[in-house]
Every structure is written in structure tokens, then in C-alpha cells.
């Protein structure tokens, strides 16, 4: 592995049009999910008279704040199906979008540190294989061979007892992914409108017919919500509730280093996940802050905790410096699975609840949500993730199962 050059920045990405007075569909939120949804609405369903409304700048939310881990090794059939579909899309998207956003299939390891972890991991490898997801169980020696800087000695509090490994998993340049989708959306005629905050909805009875924004009211046949951490705020404006809690989630990078870390390592138990970006920064993330928060920042002890875990697992990081830390607002659900589908408001659809792990799902979220918006019916991959599951009890509990949910 060598330090790679970033892709050359294209001369032109998208127009900045004034909003029209009416659209066939309006997508709220210009993160990865909103852009991917608009792209597939235009490409697969011929809906090109549509707009993406973004209150800030494109991909200024979680899309360009995440640690870019892409994997599909989830336990349950419903999750494996949608995340594996996403992974297959990741494999063809650079060509389809004509944009090399450095999707690097360097593999992802999920470490096991306890007997419970080991059992869960081996069970998940079996489940993955049955679902056509590439998965292996590695013993500590094999872990060390794949990632030589990992400390597999048993002189630490939680020694490495093995790991699951998904070779096709990896990372990508998140901001370039957003730009790749945005450029294609624009080419297909989609209006991307930044600095356009949705402040309310216009309804005719229980049917949404327009959105109110700081740039005026826009009429629309359909609304798709892709607002991640702000989903509850938008739902409240529309008059319904979501079973979502918004939490700060933080990450950090070191200064640039020589390539030392060839894969992606995640540990649920000591709670840190680490990869090395193409330019050479060590990228690390941790868990959410415990409290509800919309502040795009969290508490420092969470970072301290994740650094302690990182240094124990990777002793050579001890002298690395933190260059930058930041936070996003993630929309968590109680079963750690997303919510995609219809809402109590007619012609309004919601895609949210991807929480700490929705970057990897971006292409499949977009593809299936576009189907739902265009046809008014679920796609077979997003059907299990509808809001109704909280009433029927058919939860898709990926909490204990998929280990770290990033």
C-alpha cells in the first residue's frame, strides 16, 4: 500500500439554481442519502423534475463527518440483504457515476475480546455465509498476519481472541461520494438547492402538498425526508413522531503518517475503530455520547476513552497526535436498524434511523427509498424496515449482533 493521491477535483459539479415554484418530488436533506435517493429517482424512475433541499452546504452533515467504513457483515437476514446490496452497488458505482472516489476494499476486521465475543462472532460468520456475505473467522495469529501493528499479546486488559474478517469491506472518500452523486443528479436535471432550510409543510387534510422554506413555499406532489439527526424535528413539523433519539457521535484524525495500517479494525468491546486514510491520517471513531444532543459536538472523555483503547491495541500509536476532532448528530433507533418507508402523512416518506452506520448503506438506501417514493410501495429490501415494526414487534435487533454499528 502506498499513499494515494486524491482524485483530481472536477471542474464542474452542479448548478446552484433558484428553487422552482413546484416539483414532482422534494427531498429534504442534501447528505449522501438525499443525493442517492434523488439520483435513483431520476435514473430508475424518470423523475427528473425534483429538488434536493439542503439547509446548509451539500454533505455538511454526517455525510462528510463519518469514518467511511463500508461492510455488510450484519447478523440478521433483513440487514444482510440491504447492506450486501449496498456493498454490491459500491462495487459498481465508481464506474456508473464516472467518478473514482477511492473505494478501497481493504477488508474490515471485527475483533473479539471475550468468550461471548468469540461465540457471537463465529455465529455471525456462519449467518453471513448463509446469506452470501463473505466472512471468515481469524485466530489471533491470522489477525496479526493481516494487521501486523495490532497487539495480540495477552498482557492487556482485553486480549485479542480472534476476529471476524470481511475481505470485500473497506472505506471510501465520503465527500467525493457526495459530489459524485450530486454531479450525476445535476446532469439528470435534478435541482440541488443549498442554504434552503425546510421550516414547515403545507398539507391538504392529511396529504402533504408543499414545503415551506427560508426561500419561500415550494409546491410538491411528494416529500422524502433524508434529514438524519434532524428527522424528528421535521416529523414534528409534519405532525407525526419517530422513535428516534439524536446523539452526538465523534471521530478524530491524527497527522499524516507513513502507511502502517493496511485494513480496517473495529473493536466493539474496547470500543474503537481505526483505519488509515489514503493520505495517511489515522482515522478513529468511538461510541455515541450518552445524552441527546443536536450540538454537533460531544464530550472529551469519550475521545479519551477511545484513544486509550486505540493505544492498547496499537502500541505504535502512542506517539501520534490528534490533529482534529469533530462530531455529527446521529439518529439512533432502539433496535439499531434504520426506518425506511411511508409515514402517517400521505405522500410523505421517511428514510432515517441509520444512526452511527448509514454511510455504508447510502446506495441501497437511495435505490430502495427512490422506489418507495416513486411507487408509494415498499421495495422488498426496505419493507422490513418500515415504521410499523415498532407496533408489530418485528424488530431487527442488530445491537448485540452486528457488534460496533458503524
Amino acid at each position, binding site marked *: 500500500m502506498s499513499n494515494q493521491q486524491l482524485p483530481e477535483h472536477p471542474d464542474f459539479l452542479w448548478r446552484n439554481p433558484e428553487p422552482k415554484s413546484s416539483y414532482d418530488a422534494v427531498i429534504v436533506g442534501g447528505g449522501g442519502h438525499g443525493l442517492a435517493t434523488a439520483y435513483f429517482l431520476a435514473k430508475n424512475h424518470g423523475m427528473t423534475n425534483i429538488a434536493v433541499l439542503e439547509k446548509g452546504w451539500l454533505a455538511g452533515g454526517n455525510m462528510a463527518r463519518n469514518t467511511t467504513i463500508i461492510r455488510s457483515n450484519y447478523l440478521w437476514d433483513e440487514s444482510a440483504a440491504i447492506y450486501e446490496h449496498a456493498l454490491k452497488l459500491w462495487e459498481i458505482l465508481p464506474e456508473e457515476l464516472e467518478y473514482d472516489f477511492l473505494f478501497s476494499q481493504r477488508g474490515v476486521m471485527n475483533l473479539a475480546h471475550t468468550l461471548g465475543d468469540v461465540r457471537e462472532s463465529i455465529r455471525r460468520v456462519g449467518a453471513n455465509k448463509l446469506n452470501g456475505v463473505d466472512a471468515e473467522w481469524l485466530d489471533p495469529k491470522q489477525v496479526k498476519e493481516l494487521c501486523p501493528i495490532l497487539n495480540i499479546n495477552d498482557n492487556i486488559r482485553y486480549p485479542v481472541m480472534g476476529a471476524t474478517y470481511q475481505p470485500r469491506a473497506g472505506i471510501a472518500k465520503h465527500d467525493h461520494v457526495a459530489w459524485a452523486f450530486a454531479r450525476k443528479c445535476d446532469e439528470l436535471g435534478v435541482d440541488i438547492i443549498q442554504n434552503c432550510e425546510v421550516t414547515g409543510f403545507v398539507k391538504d387534510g392529511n396529504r402533504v402538498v408543499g414545503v415551506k422554506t427560508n426561500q419561500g413555499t415550494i409546491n410538491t406532489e411528494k416529500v422524502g425526508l433524508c434529514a438524519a439527526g*434532524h428527522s*424528528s*424535528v421535521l416529523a*414534528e413539523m409534519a405532525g407525526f*413522531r*419517530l*422513535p*428516534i*433519539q*439524536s446523539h452526538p457521535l465523534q471521530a478524530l484524525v491524527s497527522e499524516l503518517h507513513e502507511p502502517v495500517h493496511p485494513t480496517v479494525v473495529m473493536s466493539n468491546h474496547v470500543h474503537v475503530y481505526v483505519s488509515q486514510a489514503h493520505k495517511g491520517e489515522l482515522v478513529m471513531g468511538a461510541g455515541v455520547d*450518552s*445524552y*441527546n*444532543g*443536536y*450540538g454537533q459536538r460531544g*464530550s*472529551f*472523555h469519550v475521545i479519551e476513552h477511545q484513544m486509550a483503547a486505540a493505544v492498547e491495541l496499537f502500541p505504535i500509536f502512542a506517539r501520534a497526535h490528534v490533529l482534529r476532532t469533530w462530531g455529527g448528530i446521529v439518529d439512533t433507533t*432502539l433496535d439499531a436498524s434504520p426506518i425506511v418507508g411511508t409515514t402517517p402523512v400521505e405522500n410523505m416518506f421517511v428514510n432515517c434511523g441509520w444512526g452511527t452506520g448509514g454511510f455504508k448503506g447510502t446506495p441501497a438506501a437511495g435505490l430502495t427509498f427512490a422506489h418507495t417514493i416513486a411507487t408509494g410501495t415498499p421495495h422488498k429490501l426496505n419493507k422490513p424496515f418500515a415504521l410499523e415494526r*415498532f*407496533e*408489530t*414487534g418485528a424488530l431487527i435487533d442488530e445491537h448485540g449482533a452486528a457488534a460496533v454499528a458503524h
Partner: protein
Amino acid sequence: MLLIPCPNCGSRDETEFHYGGQAHVAYPENPTELNDREWAEFLFYRDNTKGAFAERWLHSTGCRQWFNMLRDTVTYDIQAVYAMGTPRPATTGPAASEPGTASTAADSTTTGNAAPSTSSSSTTAPEGATK
């Protein structure tokens, strides 16, 4: 790191506390009469307020008492702390009251059930779950 004014112990680091989520969510008065929708509301739906939010905290490594706190979820300013079982104080003023200056004096002896209202005959959604 939040500096949290425990009503019993004074200001302590956030790491001494455990978060308990939205306050004032009472157990349904007539559980047997709830339908699936209402159970879903009680079990899975909580307010996710952007702004002043009434929430529960446990001082787990200190006095081990639960209390309520009013905190702004955008600025993270702590606006009031008050006892479990007492209603949410009205706050208009600026942030960060010290222990004892919160509009309801903290009393650590209350137990877990935080339903301030007894007048409701509703058997449907729990308090705070219908916004």
C-alpha cells in the same frame, strides 16, 4: 464534558453520572387496555427535542440518586435540576443554575415514578408521549 450540578453533591463531572433519557414518562395507568400502537408509543417513542429538554440523570458514582434536569440539547446549557416526582419547572432565564437555585428545591428522597399529574383519566399514551 458536562459539569452536572447534582442536587445532593454539587457540581461533578459527567463521567460520574448515568443518563436516563426523557423525564416524566409514566407507566401506563391501565396497561391491559393499551393497544399495540399505544404500547409502541410507551416502549419505543420518546421526545427528541431540539432545545430545552427534561431528562433524568443518575449520580451513579456519587449519592446514587436519580434526579431530573432541564438541559438545552443544542447549547448543552443546564437550565435547572429538580426532584423526581415534581413537575418540570418553567424556565425563561439563562442557563446553568447552581444546585439549590433551581426553581424547585431538590429533594433526594423521592423514588422513581415521575408522573406529576394525577388528574388524567386517560388510559392511552403515557404522559409526554403524544406530542
